[in-house]
């Protein structure tokens, strides 16, 4: 039984990897199977994690009759399939949009903006890093000197790059260039990190194929 399921997983892995050669029927079957399984799982997950505990159980046990409102709103979403009464689906959509908008205002303001600005409210220059560098002139100690200027002046340069109310010319252009350069380093780092993460995942798949499933290699 275990080997059967391992083989299912192995064949699924090979089917997806076959796309590296070319778009082929095996990959298309795997792709459609994946979408079907994922959609089915979402329905089950919402049923067990939200529908039963948040709606059905409190409603049927009589503890909260107000829940008839979200039940009706949820069902109203399906009017989207009708041309005549499809506009009713805007009501539940508004519930989702309004909640997300309200939470986004607070979440982004307190979680992202304030915290990020606060983390950059540090001295522009840390004299201790210079004395550390003069004692031990290593690369890492030199990079430590740059830390605070980058987090303060560098951040201003990055933000200035996104500030389009003034034209980026003359001296201001140089600030924008510093901002762009930092952004490029960020994008490059993000790209390199993503590639390495995906490569690690790929090794994991090969480990599964050759060690766990086919057992032609050992760890």
């Amino acid at each position, binding site marked *: 039984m275990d080997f059967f399921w391992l083989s299912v997983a192995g064949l*699924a892995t090979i089917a*997806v990897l076959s796309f590296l050669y070319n778009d082929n029927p095996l990959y298309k079957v795997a792709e*459609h199977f994946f979408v079907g399984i994922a959609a089915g*799982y979402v*329905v089950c997950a919402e049923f067990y994690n939200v529908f039963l505990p948040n709606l059905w159980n409190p409603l049927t046990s009589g503890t909260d009759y107000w829940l008839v409102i979200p039940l009706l709103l949820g069902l109203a979403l399906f009017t989207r399939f009708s041309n005549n009464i499809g506009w009713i689906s*805007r009501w539940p959509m508004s519930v989702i949009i309004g909640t997300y908008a309200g939470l986004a205002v607070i979440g982004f*303001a307190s979680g992202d903006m304030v915290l990020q600005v606060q983390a950059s409210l540090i001295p522009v220059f840390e004299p201790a890093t210079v004395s550390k560098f003069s004692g031990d002139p290593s690369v890492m100690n030199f990079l430590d000197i740059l830390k605070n200027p980058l987090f303060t002046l560098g951040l201003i340069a990055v933000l200035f790059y996104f500030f389009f109310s003034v034209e980026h010319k003359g001296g201001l252009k140089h600030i924008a260039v510093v901002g762009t350069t930092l952004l490029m380093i960020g994008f490059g780092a993000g790209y390199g990190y993503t590639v390495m993460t995906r490569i690690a995942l790929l090794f994991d798949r090969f480990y599964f194929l050759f060690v766990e499933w086919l057992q032609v290699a050992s760890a």
Partner: protein
Amino acid sequence: MKREIPILITLIFGVFMIVQFFIPHPAVNDIANRLQNWAIIVIAFSYVLGSANILRINGELVYRRGPGWLYKLVLVIAFFMMVIPGMFLGIGEGTWTNDRLFTNTYIPLASTMYASLAFFIASAAFRAFRVRTWQASVLALTAVIVMLGRIPISHMIWHDLPNVVDWVMNVPNAVAQRGILIGAALGAIATGLKVILGIERSYLGRE
């Protein structure tokens, strides 16, 4: 009815989500939590709506024997293959649906798809990262340094390479991400307020 009520609903839900933060009174919190729970329930229905839509579109194609109908049939079968045992046996740990079906189909498919993206990212980068300007060179160079620093033998190339990569990730990369986050947060706050106040109404459609 068609436009005013949705705008009013958006206003009520949006305002309560904001007010609960500034007025932590039990009465306000109670209403806000109740509204949030209602939204979670409606969102759950929206997931089911999405799945129903997938089934409707693919089911129609199978029925009409449209282009690629056999693949669509695989999708529909896979959907019911997950939903039927999932509904009856559950999807938690220890269930057949989770331990056998989900673990041996969804997880290998998803992780292999993410893994194979490594090749596509690399080939796309080869075309996109042509070093035309010095800033493009900075991007390419940073990517190479980060990739080299993440391999197990990076310290053998240069003993400080892993530390330099950590510094790149924690300082200049963090500065760039911080700038983007602050900009995105300002945009999200402005858009959120516009939606709540009914200035932004594109989510209502044309009519």
